[in-house]
C-alpha cells in the first residue's frame, strides 16, 4: 500500500535517518517524516556546530553506510589533555593526558561538523529504496490500533505502520501525544558554543580545562580550527553572549590562553542552557522514543548524538531480532526489551552525573564530555560504577552490535 510501511519515524535529524538506514538494511520499509525542507540544515557555510563522535558512534555510521562520505571532513582526536587551570600555564598536579596510542592505535573519536553529517545522511536515505522521506510535514495526530499505528500529517494525509518511532527532540510531540511525561532539572548553567580559527595547528589534541568560572573544552576540527564549548553560570553566559564579537573574543582569550596563537571567530555563536529532560517511559503502545526525545542531555559537542546513536543501535538490534524470529516487532513485548536495555544506561548516566555534580560542583558538563568520550581517569569513576552496575544486573557486553562495528 502506498501510505504503509513497517516503521514510521518522526524526525529527520540525525538519529532518525540513522535508524531508518539500519532498519532498511535488515529488510524493513521505513517512512521518515521531517518538518524541515530538504537541505535546511546542510547549508554550505559552517555554522559552528560540531559533534565529538565517540569511536562507537563512528562504527555505527560506518555500518549504516554514511561514514565514507563524512570521513574526509572528520578530524581524528588523537590526544586528550585535561588540565586544572588554564591553557598556556604549567600543568597543575591534576594534569591528565590520554594518548590514543594507549588504546589500540585508533583515534579516541572524531570531530565532525553538523553540515557534513546531515549531507551524508540525506544522501544515504534518498538512495535507499526501502526508505520514503516526507518533508515539510508535521504529525498532528497518532492512532493506535490492535496491530498497527497511524499518523495524520498536517496535509491531511494518513500514514500507516506497525511501529512509530519518535526521534523528534526534547519536546517530542510523539511522546506528548502518547501521554508520556518527562522528568528533568536545570543545572543553572549555560554553555557558550562557537568555532574558532587559530594560528597554530592543534595536532588533533582536545583540551579540557577545569577553571574557576567553569569548564572549557577545545575540540579539534579539520584545519587550524577548533570547536569551543564553554560553560558559565547562566547569567554570566548571557552577558558574554550579548557582547559583540570583539568583546566575546576578549572574554574568551584569557580562558583559552595563547598556545594556539591568535584566535578569531569562525562562525556563529550559540548558547545552550544545560538541563536534563528524560521521558518517563521510552516506549508506549506501538511507539518508541530515541535520542533527545527519550533523554535530552546537554546538546553540546554531540554527546547527545552519541547517546542517541546508542538508542538507534539498540532499537535496530531489538527490532531486527524480533523480525527474524517472526515476532510482531511493534508489540509491547518486543519494545520492552529496548526500554530495559536503554533505560538502564540512562539511569546509570543520570546517577553518574549527579555524583559528579556533588564532587565537582559546576564541572559536570566537562566530566560528562570526558566520560562519554571514554577517555580519562575522571572517566574511571562512572566507568567503574557502570561496569559494576552492569555486572550486578547481568548486562555486561551490552553495547549494541552496530556500535561494535558489527552488522545486524
Amino acid at each position, binding site marked *: 500500500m502506498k501510505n504503509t510501511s513497517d516503521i514510521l519515524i518522526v524526525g529527520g535529524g540525525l538519529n532518525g535517518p540513522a535508524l531508518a538506514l539500519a532498519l532498511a538494511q535488515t529488510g524493513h520499509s521505513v517512512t521518515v517524516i521531517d518538518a524541515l525542507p530538504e537541505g535546511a540544515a546542510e547549508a554550505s557555510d559552517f555554522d559552528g556546530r560540531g559533534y565529538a563522535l565517540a569511536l562507537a558512534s563512528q562504527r555505527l555510521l560506518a555500518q549504516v553506510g554514511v561514514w565514507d562520505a563524512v570521513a574526509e571532513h572528520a578530524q581524528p582526536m588523537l590526544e586528550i589533555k585535561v588540565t586544572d587551570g588554564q591553557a598556556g600555564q604549567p600543568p597543575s598536579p591534576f594534569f591528565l593526558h590520554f594518548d590514543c596510542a594507549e588504546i589500540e592505535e585508533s583515534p579516541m573519536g572524531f570531530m565532525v561538523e553538523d553540515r557534513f553529517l546531515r549531507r551524508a545522511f540525506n544522501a544515504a536515505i534518498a538512495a535507499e529504496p526501502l526508505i520514503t522521506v516526507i518533508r515539510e510535514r508535521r504529525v498532528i495526530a497518532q492512532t493506535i490500533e490492535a*496491530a498497527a499505528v497511524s499518523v495524520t500529517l498536517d496535509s491531511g494525509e494518513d500514514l500507516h505502520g506497525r511501529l512509530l518511532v519518535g526521534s523528534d527532540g526534547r519536546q517530542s510531540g510523539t511522546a506528548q501525544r502518547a501521554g508520556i511525561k518527562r522528568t528533568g532539572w536545570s543545572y543553572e548553567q549555560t554553555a557558550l558554543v562557537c568555532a574558532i580559527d587559530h594560528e597554530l595547528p592543534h595536532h588533533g589534541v582536545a583540551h579540557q580545562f577545569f577553571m574557576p568560572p567553569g569548564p572549557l573544552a577545545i575540540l579539534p576540527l579539520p584545519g587550524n580550527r577548533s570547536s569551543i564549548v564553554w560553560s558559565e553560570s547562566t547569567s554570566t553566559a548571557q552577558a558574554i553572549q550579548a557582547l559583540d564579537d570583539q568583546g566575546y573574543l576578549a572574554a574568551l582569550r584569557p580562558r583559552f590562553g595563547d598556545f594556539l596563537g591568535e584566535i578569531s571567530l569562525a562562525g556563529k555563536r550559540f548558547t545552550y542552557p544545560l538541563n536534563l529532560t528524560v521521558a518517563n517511559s521510552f516506549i508506549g503502545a506501538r511507539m518508541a522514543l530515541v535520542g533527545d526525545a527519550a533523554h535530552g542531555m546537554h546538546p553540546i559537542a554531540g554527546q547527545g548524538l552519541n547517546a542517541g546513536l546508542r538508542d538507534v543501535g539498540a532499537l535496530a538490534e531489538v527490532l531486527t531480532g524480533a523480525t527474524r524470529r*517472526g*515476532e510482531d516487532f511493534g508489540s*509491547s513485548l518486543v519494545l*520492552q526489551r529496548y526500554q530495559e536495555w536503554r533505560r538502564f544506561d540512562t539511569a546509570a548516566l543520570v546517577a553518574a552525573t549527579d555524583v559528579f555534580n556533588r564532587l565537582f560542583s559546576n564541572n559536570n558538563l566537562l566530566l560528562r564530555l570526558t566520560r562519554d568520550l571514554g577517555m580519562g581517569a575522571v572517566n574511571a569513576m562512572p566507568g567503574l560504577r557502570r561496569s559494576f552496575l552492569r555486572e550486578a544486573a547481568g548486562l555486561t557486553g551490552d553495547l549494541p552490535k552496530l556500535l561494535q562495528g558489527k552488522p545486524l
Partner: protein
Amino acid sequence: MQASQTTVDPAEIAKFEAMAAEWWDPEGKFKPLHMLNPCRLDYITGQIAAHYGRDLSKQMPFAGLRILDIGCGGGLLSEPMARLGADVVGADAAEGNLPVARIHAEQSGLPIDYRHTTAEAMAEAGEQFDVVLNMEVIEHVADPQGFLIASQQLLKPGGLLICSTINRNPKSYAVAILGAEVIMRWLPRGTHEWAKFITPVELSDLLQGAGLKHTDSKGFVFNPITWSWSISPTDLSVNYVTASTKAAKT
C-alpha cells in the same frame, strides 16, 4: 481490522477479543509463556532454517514450508511462523482457544488455519507437514507414545519435529510446580502434573519409539537475576527442547 463476520454474535466477538488481548498481554495471565517465547522461537527458527537451508535474514524465509503447531493456544508460535512466510495450521483440543487465536491473527493480518482437532485425528485424516511443533504439550497428554507416533505420521518424509517438555526431578518439581504455580502464581494451580513430566532419556526413547531420529537437545534455562530465559546446551534440568527428523523416502 475487518468487521465482516456477520454470522457471529457481536457479544461473543467482544468476549473473544478480550480473551485475545489477555493471551497476548505480556504482563497478563500468560506472562511465563511470553517470557519463554523468544527463546523457543530462537530454537525453532534456528532448527528449521538449518534443516531446510533457509536464511533468516531474508524476507519470508519459511515460504513454501507447511507447519503444524499442536496445542497452539492463542497462537504465540503460529503467528511468528506465519509471519516468516510459512503456511501454518494451528491445532488445539481446547475449543475456547480457537476463536481467540483467529481474532488475533485477523488483527495481525496473518492467514492461519486454526482447527479444533487433535494430532491423532489429523494423522488419521492423512495430513502432512514439513515441520510439526509440539511445544509444552506432551506433558499434558494421556498417551505420550501414541501422541508422538501421530506426530511422526503428520510429518512428510524428511520432516522435522520440535518437541519441548519439562524434566522430572526434584528441581523441576521445585521450579515448575512450587515456583511457577504455588509461589509466583505464574500458572494456575494444577496446570502441571509432576508425574507426567518426562526425562530427556525417556523422551529420546519415545521419539525413537515413534520412528524418529533424535538429532538435538537443548535446555531452556531461567535466570532469576536477569529475569530472562536463555538456551543452554547442557542444562536440561527443567525445561528442555528436542529436534528429531523423519527418514526421507528411500
